[in-house]
């Protein structure tokens, strides 16, 4: 038994699919934001896997650096998204993003 590039990439794809599910299926703004966080994280995991098992020395630290940038961007997106969710809550007393549809 071993761990290679394919295992990590499949796990990353599964995490991305979980995030996509949350984004499509849930109506709560908070849970949709969690879905986008999972999708960002899945991208970061894929970058780390490529840096570890793929083009190693050529881009030895690039994968980790891009992962750090993606994580920080995700946190920034979460901060703004949660502020918008708070405004939605103040207006509708609910985190549901489709309140107007009834």
């Amino acid at each position, binding site marked *: 038994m071993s761990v290679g590039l394919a295992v990590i990439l499949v796990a990353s794809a599964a995490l991305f699919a979980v995030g996509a599910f949350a984004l499509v299926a849930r109506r709560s703004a908070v849970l949709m934001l969690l879905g986008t966080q999972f999708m960002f994280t899945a991208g970061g995991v894929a970058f780390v896997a490529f840096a570890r098992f793929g083009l190693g020395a050529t881009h030895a630290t690039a994968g980790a*650096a891009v992962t750090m940038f993606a994580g920080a961007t995700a946190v920034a997106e979460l901060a703004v998204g949660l502020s918008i969710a708070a405004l939605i809550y*103040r207006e509708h007393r609910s985190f549901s993003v489709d309140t107007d549809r009834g």
Partner: protein
Amino acid sequence: MPVLLIGALPQPITEAPLVILIYGVLVLMLASALASVLLRNTLYAIGAFAATMVLVALLYLALAPFLLFAVQLLVFTTVSAALLLSLLRQTSGLASTQDRFSREWIVGAAVAAALLALLVVVVASTSWPLGPTTNAGAGFGATLTNTYVVGLAVLAVILASSALGSGLLLAAPTLPSTRGGGTTRPASPRGGRSARRR
């Protein structure tokens, strides 16, 4: 011109304890991510989300430079969980109003399954290029401050502006809506003034 190979080509991880650790972390990570998406209580969902982020940090510990593990654990996980919990402190929207297994769930599951199938087919059918490996952790800090110094600066600006913007959004009064909503402060969960005038 051929590229000189310095170092060894990357090999799969075969040490039994590390392999078991990585498989365990991957399974737990996916399970907690699914729990985070499926749980109806938002507080529990945030707990599962934080657990997922910690498990991703453990995965980075096994595969990536230590600095990335530390940043993922101490900065990204902590800040994300703190932001989510602070939002819940301002509000009381813990319970989901969505029905279980509604039509959106079927559509979401179909989209997620299609995406997963596409990605797995791409991963399985592609021959990824390999390059010689070196100690990735040695020059990570130098890479960040030399090669990616512009990216680091841009990132600092993005983080600062998002912090400023989210603070202003939270502090700004909302406009009164046609339905009568709009207030400068969120209502207290213990019976404060309601945001919606009836």
